[in-house]
């Protein structure tokens, strides 16, 4: 697998940074299984795969006042897929965030405003582009065992190039996507070392479904392009949908500054014309925070 050509140096790079830098915030390793990577409705179109994701975040924070903190964070992540290597990607992002704590102590509410731009570099060139996020979030710790948070996020993805149109009248910008996301979540320590977390998200925006030629999907779509990542004769259809997701996780503390988390996420997307899909994701994540 040629993907290791860049995954391994990346891991080595992280290792070297760990030894020398105090500005590294977090490093992570995740194994992620997605049972419907194609976001498809029909069994014949549904493709599943497992990816290994390596990530790192580094940055500087400026405590502007007793309550306000500005932080600039560089994030790097690389994903390597077992079967669909065209989805292998390397992302680099820069995030500017402002965190405001409404008072003193761990139980006061917090407000977080953030904006980020992330460069997306895929093996499959048509997926290359930029992802822009803007988010407002509020969080409150209720006790030493529990906390809640709510966020609103807008996402915009812009691809570098647009594929050739299959028909002059049909747009082909399948990877130019916008969405709004509203999320509610909470966590609860079920044991001094285990935290259970849950989040519910409603997403209103563009989704991409990759299928064989499909009339109902075609009628619901706003853009179409060939998507050879999943084989010949496959097409990526962009359409508007409401996606609801429920994610659950159990996270175990590993030596104070690290955690190992098993997570499950259920996604349910519904587009006009009776187009809907479901997906189940399972994640095993190791995170170390400096």
């Amino acid at each position, binding site marked *: 697998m040629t993907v290791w050509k860049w995954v391994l140096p990346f891991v080595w790079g992280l290792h070297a940074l760990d030894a020398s830098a105090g500005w590294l915030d977090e490093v992570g390793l995740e194994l992620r299984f997605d049972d419907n990577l194609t976001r498809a409705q029909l069994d014949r179109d549904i493709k599943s795969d497992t990816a290994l994701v390596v990530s790192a975040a580094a940055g500087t924070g400026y405590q502007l006042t007793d309550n306000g903190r500005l932080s600039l964070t560089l994030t790097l992540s690389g994903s390597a897929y077992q079967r669909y290597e065209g989805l292998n990607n390397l992302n680099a992002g820069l995030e500017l965030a402002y965190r405001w704590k409404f008072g003193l102590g761990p139980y006061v509410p917090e407000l*977080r405003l953030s904006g980020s731009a992330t460069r997306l570099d895929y093996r499959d060139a048509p997926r290359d582009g930029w992802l822009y996020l803007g988010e407002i979030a509020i969080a409150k710790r209720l006790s030493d065992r529990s906390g809640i948070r709510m966020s609103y996020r807008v996402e915009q993805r812009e691809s570098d190039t647009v594929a050739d149109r299959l028909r002059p009248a049909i747009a082909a910008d399948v990877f130019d996507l916008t969405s709004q996301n509203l999320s509610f979540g909470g966590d609860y320590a079920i044991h001094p070392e285990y935290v259970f977390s849950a989040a519910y998200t409603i997403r209103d925006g563009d989704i991409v479904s990759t299928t064989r030629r499909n009339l109902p999907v075609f009628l619901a779509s706003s853009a179409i392009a060939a998507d050879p990542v999943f084989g010949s004769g496959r097409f990526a259809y962009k359409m508007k949908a409401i996606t609801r997701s429920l994610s659950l*996780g159990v996270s175990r503390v590993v030596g104070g500054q690290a*955690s190992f988390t098993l997570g499950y996420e259920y996604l349910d997307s519904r587009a006009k014309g009776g187009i809907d899909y479901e997906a189940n994701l399972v994640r095993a994540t190791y995170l170390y925070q400096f």
Partner: protein
Amino acid sequence: MKNTLRELRVRMAHAGFALTFCLSPVGAHAGEIHALVRDKTGKGVVDAVVVALPANRSAGNAGGASATIIVDQVNKEFIPYVLPVQVGTAVNFPNKDNIRHHVYSFSPAKNFELPLYMGTPASPVLFDKPGAVVLGCNIHDWMIAYVYVSDSPYFAKTGADGKANLTELPPGDYTLRAWHPRLAGKEEATERKVAVSRTGAVEATWDIGLTPEFRIRRAPIPGQRGY
């Protein structure tokens, strides 16, 4: 010979306290309490504070904290986790990290705040009321430590084996107490009376109930970076 004598005198002056201590061995004029704090499973409890309150309060003037007592901040944690001090002790909170901390306490025994700082704050914090003081940092919510302010000069903190020795106790009657950050129930419920004599040591053992340790965690949760 002259030189050797002078040298000896200089050394004695330097080691004055230790020498006095050696000339009046423990047991001749002072008693000891050997304390053991265990949990309900019989395991030694670390970071418990054992206090001996003399029945004769005038015996409670000994000791006194003249040395600089500190609670460090190292790698975004307080060190030590539990610091027992006598009432009237000033404690410094040096920040050994290269980022700022914001130390505070809401505890009735000492309500204070050291807003954002690096290095050592200009003046130490005076702990002038007995009781347990919970320390926090407003930048790093997981940082927690306790200053236990004792109204008696006779106290000790247990080690990993749950043992603590209280020495140099004037003979007399004492009320003993054990305290721990996770003590289930009231500290007063651990009280017991002992008589300390000039010689020999009193053994005192507690089997205390501990509440589960639900601390705000430092370890990250996926998808929650930045909180």
